[in-house]
């Protein structure tokens, strides 16, 4: 059993040394004057290339669709003010979605999905708001990536949980065997 444990964990360690984390689909979205722009990527942080992006309402009615480029980026013009659900669809049943409130230029509140950026009402402030959006976009994407990143603590915690569960099962079985005997 000890040899088997060593063997299995050797395989894990060997493969784990090249770890890139697969495979949940993620999406980040920011507002632009005419719609949204964003990025879709897998949990190993590789871009979700050429995947479908849908803009729907809460009831699933589709307003617009687009495809990500080779860097996983997309931009979609929205038809008007409203609450939208942005869905990224990957292959093999992968899917990620997020929700935004959109107000067109002149009415824009400058809010984004990750963090409200305060208000900037009126068309005269729009160039400043646009500049701020451009400046803050990489930072927001980085924050979203950090939030979604798989942490080593989660992996170790999961393995610990499994070990504990196996221990409890073994204990329960041993007690049952003792009672029977």
């Amino acid at each position: 059993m000890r040899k088997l444990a060593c063997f299995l964990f050797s395989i894990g360690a060997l493969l784990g040394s090249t770890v890139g984390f697969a495979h949940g689909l993620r999406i980040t979205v920011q507002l632009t004057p005419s719609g949204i722009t964003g990025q879709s990527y897998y949990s190993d942080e590789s871009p979700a290339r050429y995947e479908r992006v849908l803009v729907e309402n809460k009831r699933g009615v589709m307003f617009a669709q687009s495809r990500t480029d080779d860097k996983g980026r997309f931009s979609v013009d929205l038809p008007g003010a409203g609450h939208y659900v942005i869905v990224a669809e990957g292959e093999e049943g992968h899917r990620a979605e997020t929700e935004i409130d959109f107000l067109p230029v002149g009415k824009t509140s400058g809010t984004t999905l990750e963090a409200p950026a305060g208000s900037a009402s009126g068309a005269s402030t729009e160039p400043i708001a646009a500049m701020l959006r451009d400046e803050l976009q990489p930072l927001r994407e980085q924050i979203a990536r950090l939030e979604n990143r798989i942490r080593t603590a989660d992996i170790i915690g999961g393995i610990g949980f499994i070990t504990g569960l196996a221990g409890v099962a073994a204990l329960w079985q041993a007690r049952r065997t003792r009672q029977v005997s």
Partner: protein
Amino acid sequence: MHISEGVLSLGVLAGGGALATVAVGIGLRRLPESRIPLAGLLCALFFVTSLIHIPVGITAVHLVLNGVCGIMLGWGAFPVIAIALLLQALLFGFGGLTTLGVNILVMGTPALVCYTLFYAATTARPITASQAMWRGAICGMCGIALGVMLMASVLWLSGGRSFLPLVWAVMLTHIPVLLIEACLTAALVSTLLRTQPALLKPLEQA
């Protein structure tokens, strides 16, 4: 191979959940006491290996190791896979809680088929090293291939996708995984036959 939330129809989710519950129940009853530590070990391995991705073209695929789980645990692979998938959904956001049942079936059913394949016609004579290696390789490949077919089936049942192009597209991206799993499973069962032959016996004899 994790199907996300919001992809499958309600009927498929409910059916998958019910079948998975039954399968996990059977698995818990049939898992021999002597293999509980092994089940924990394989659960941890399954939990971790799904994090390892292999870039294929514009996408990436990951190892599953359901064939290995099936060979060693039979029906017991279902609870092992269920716990690993639950933790992956909660900790990493892979798959989802509503699709947990379907994902358990997609990865667990091939494991059960692998168990049947591996021990087919082995009651009369003990399995030889070369037999174990070849059977292991076939089971490693079957685990992935059947999983892909089941995944394509549930996506097709939920509508919106044509079955054969989907199967071929997914199968094509999984060819590297298929080969790696075949080699890994073959190596593992060959090693086990030399070092721990007791673990390569059908569950009734465990």
